[in-house]
């Protein structure tokens, strides 16, 4: 089993778990996360990766999910920290791998060890690296959408708000019901589109009601779902990952607006 050599004088070696969605649809989230991590004094590496296994795990195929989990563990365990710009994928590794592999003693131990050093990006920046402010500018009203996995599974609530508030010129707008699900839910959004869309509409109404010009969040799944629904309904609220704004990429084309 590979365990990292930790030297206090060296910058921590952080593996970025970029997430399969950001890898394919929104690379700037990965670059924003890397920039924020480097600003926080980390050495960022990106090992070859696919997905955390959630589609199989939540779709009922535990065997496939366990196979993906073993793969992720073997790839990422040499690093000192594993950080994902997603509450959902970090939550999968942190809260579910050990249970998924509970019948395989060695793997369960390795899963638990990986879980202990896996973090959601904003929580890592604030709670592990002690970051209190970012250096970016954004002259907009910005509403932050809590993904359920970030909020309830990972307990991340104040961290992204604190970092966003430190962005120069940014006006943070609070939703009326930040604790309510937006209706994405992975397969749920595809299996029950009508229910999912209705939940999105309620969230979008809430977000627009804040007077914000931009909606940001910590999970690209929610954000693709919300921006896609807004595009379909003609609502105009720019949607970005919160890391993009914190890294100073807030004026680049929003999700669904990038025509390149």
């Amino acid at each position: 089993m590979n365990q990292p050599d930790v030297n206090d004088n060296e910058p921590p070696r952080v593996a970025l778990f970029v997430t399969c969605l950001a890898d394919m649809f929104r690379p700037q989230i990965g670059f924003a996360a890397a920039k924020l991590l480097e600003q926080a004094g980390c050495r960022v590496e990106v090992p070859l990766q696919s997905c955390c296994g959630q589609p199989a795990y939540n779709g009922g195929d535990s065997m496939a999910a366990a196979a993906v989990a073993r793969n992720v563990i073997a790839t990422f365990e040499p690093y000192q920290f594993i950080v994902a710009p997603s509450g959902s994928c970090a939550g999968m590794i942190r809260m579910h791998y050990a249970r998924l592999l509970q019948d395989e003693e060695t793997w369960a131990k390795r899963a638990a060890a990986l879980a202990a050093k896996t973090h959601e990006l904003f929580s890592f920046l604030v709670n592990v690296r002690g970051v209190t402010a970012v250096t970016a500018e954004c002259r907009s009203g910005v509403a932050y959408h809590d993904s359920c996995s970030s909020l309830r599974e990972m307990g991340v609530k104040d961290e992204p708000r604190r970092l966003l508030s430190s962005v120069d010129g940014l006006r943070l707008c609070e939703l009326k019901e930040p604790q309510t699900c937006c209706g994405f839910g992975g397969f749920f959004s595809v299996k029950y589109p009508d229910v999912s869309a209705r939940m999105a509409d309620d969230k979008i109404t809430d977000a627009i009601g804040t007077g914000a010009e931009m909606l940001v969040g910590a999970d690209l799944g929610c954000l693709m779902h919300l921006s896609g629904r807004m595009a379909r309904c003609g609502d105009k609220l720019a949607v970005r990952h919160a890391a993009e704004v914190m890294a100073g990429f807030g004026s680049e084309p929003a999700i669904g607006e990038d025509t390149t």
Partner: protein
Amino acid sequence: MSEVHRFSQAARAALSDTRLQGALTHLKEGFQVKRAHALAGLADVEGLREAARSIRSHALSHLDELLLQFEAKVQANGGHVHWARDAAEARDIITRILSERGARAVTKGKSMVTEEIELNAHLERHGIAPVETDLGEYIIQLRKERPSHIVAPAFHLHRSQVEQNFRETHGHLDANRPLDSRPALVAEARSVMRTHFEASDAGITGANFLVAETGTAIIVTNEGNGDLTRLLPKAHIVVTGIEKVVPSLADVSILLRLLTRSATGQDITSYVSLMSGPKRERDADGPEAFHVVLVDNGRSALLNGPAREILQCIRCGACLNHCPVYGVIGGHAYGAVYPGPLGAALDPGLDGIAKTYDLPSASSFCGRCDSVCPVKIPLTRIMRYWRNEAYAHGLPSGWFNFGLSWWGVFARKPRLYRLAAKVAAHVLRLAAGRSGRLSSFPMLRGWFAVRDLPKPARKSFQSQWRRTR
């Protein structure tokens, strides 16, 4: 047509039912806010939840002993205990008790287990007329519906619908009477109910808890109908699930503190009725005969499996009240006795996965149910277990499972996965053309039915990273 389609269709119908949508807007004020206020008055909610979980979990670990102890106590108090393996046995036991007494008119308190065993229809087939005496249950009985909520059965209805039902059913009353207010409806129900109570040969109630050390069944109610149901007729039959038993009254005092606050936001309900047997010589009132029917109906099979913790449930309904899916479609769309997260975790155990596999998948796994459950049932974990069972049985459909298993093959091999993702991105980019997003595509119909998809990036993050670093 598959069950998934039925759920989807029912959900879609619910979304466009304006009256139902109107009722659902009260879920937040009526339940969420009241619960939050009530719990805010408690010193250590998390400590209490853990204590409650531990009591229920311990009871399940000693279910056999506790039930036997309960039975012995009830018998010692002069009552009778009956064991029903399934719904049919429970129905037969109840009709036998009623026939032996020559009972024709039966009053009923609110009971989800009697819904589960479909008791009313069975009694009617045997010439026995059951009358629901809980106002919500009475209304849905008139409408020949199922409860849409386990605590507030007629939650989905508008006052005007109830008025119409009352005018149709209570034909003996003045046709010109005013009935356009809640108090008027309640008063009318009360007066009609009074005649049913007076004529009742037997009362049937459920139980919120069974206490092993005293042989006591407990119900918590607000309308007073529960006490009239159990006390006025000559016989009282308690029908409940085997999992409801706890060791002692001290345990109940802890569970009660969370049950009423979680359910209706009350510190305590108007009535908490403790029923330990038939009327004794010096008692002022009470039934001559006291029966308890303990219903298994699939519960003991859950006891030693991964869904075991759903048996901890104390039926407060908080998971329904906080579920974003229940919140937009209501209870009937689930098409099962127990709706919402509770139902998604329990119904496959009671009715089999083949009939219910759509329920555990009808959740966005937002985890709010887990966070509000007073006895800390891991509802999403149990739903995930049922999804595994469904997948193992080839449900919901060949195509879904086929796609998922191929995804699994790719996801195990990052290089292969990246190649597949590259091809997919290329195809999607071609389809998007010059736009930043796609609004239709021959695959992923569920996604494109209601929303657009952003165009994938020209190069993936990983390939850009490797090129620049």
